[in-house]
């Protein structure tokens, strides 16, 4: 049963817990890495928008990758980046029209959302359900 990470900016209070959760969920040797999710001001008063990979149907990141390091995880639907295959050429970073593949300067690696393998930390720790990881089937029944 596939799920989707649903972002509801109207519920976001800009607390950035999601960013922290993401950093720690992807920590290397206990050190937090660059967050794959970024909360940006929405251009209106008290409005914040968490920006995270949309796992597009026809993803520019994977198309741009010349070594096939970005592939879809069929069970979660996530476009995952295989760190050991990545050659750090930044093609995906430059190609994503939403800016959701990122360059982690500190760890010299390219990072992107992988839905934490099916249990995204950002959603888990979001205090307001602005980020919610829901099954597609349930979404349909809920209308």
């Amino acid at each position, binding site marked *: 049963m596939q799920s989707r990470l649903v972002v509801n900016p*109207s519920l976001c209070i800009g607390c950035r817990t999601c960013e922290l959760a993401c950093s720690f969920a992807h920590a290397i040797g206990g050190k937090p890495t660059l967050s794959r999710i970024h909360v940006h001001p929405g251009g209106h008063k008290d409005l914040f928008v968490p920006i995270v990979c949309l796992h597009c149907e026809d993803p*520019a990141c994977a198309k*741009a990758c010349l070594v096939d390091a970005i592939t879809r995880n069929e069970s979660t639907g996530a476009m995952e980046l295989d760190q*050991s295959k990545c050659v750090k050429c*930044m093609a995906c970073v*430059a190609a994503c029209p939403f800016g959701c593949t990122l360059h982690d300067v500190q760890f010299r690696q390219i990072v992107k959302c992988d839905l934490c393998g099916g249990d995204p930390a950002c959603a888990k720790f979001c205090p307001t359900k602005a980020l919610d990881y829901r099954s597609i089937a349930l979404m349909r029944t809920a209308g």
Partner: protein
Amino acid sequence: MVSLTINGKVVQAESGEMLLTVIRRLGIDVPALCQHDAVEPYGACRLCMVEITKESWNGWKNYVTSCLYPVEQDLIVQTHSEQVIELRRTLLDLMLARNPQTPLIQRLAAEHGITKTSYTEVVEPDDCILCGICTRICDAMGFHAISSVNRGHGKEIAPPLHQPPQDCVGCLACALNCPTGFIRYTDDGRTRRIWDRTFDLVTCEKTGQGRVTREFAAFLTEHRGIPEEYFRVNDESHRKELAQTMGDITNSTREE
């Protein structure tokens, strides 16, 4: 699935997997310097060699590079037998003679108890360990800008005729994946210099900073169908734009 024994432990592996992958999955530390998952195994550094045998081999043993030896049913693998360790020590001793000032080699050698090579050091050492990762990645990406030249002990990695390489797009993959940092480059966010060639970056309209060269962007547009306008701004500006759009939509529903 096949089952095999590694250092006395019976493990399962997918058939077709290479020994090194399975060994590393077990958390066993076997060094390998020419291995990169983006490219085919190469078998040049020989550090990942392990001892293999089978019950049916009647005591006969073989030494193979685990990076390109596919797992086999009933294989018995020793990753740190006396002979294997001796081999690794010799290899690192030899590598230290070629690259005496290279921190990576110094560290690996030291881990094997060698602080100074017992062989004759080369006269003008550099940090290239001839692992071929740079050229193989460049080939895998389809650019073929650099290659090995000469052979034997005089082998080196170079652009054609030691001139700025015409086929290079300045993607930096060679430099960024070089295990010793031997391949140098500069990048100030606007221009980039590698292999004595200067590239202009496609800079962000907003920040003036760029991620990829014009040549690389043009290649991605032409051969991979990435629209040119995607390169107009950088990732941060892309996110900001998206946040603005979503903010506007959210705001309009809020007002209703």
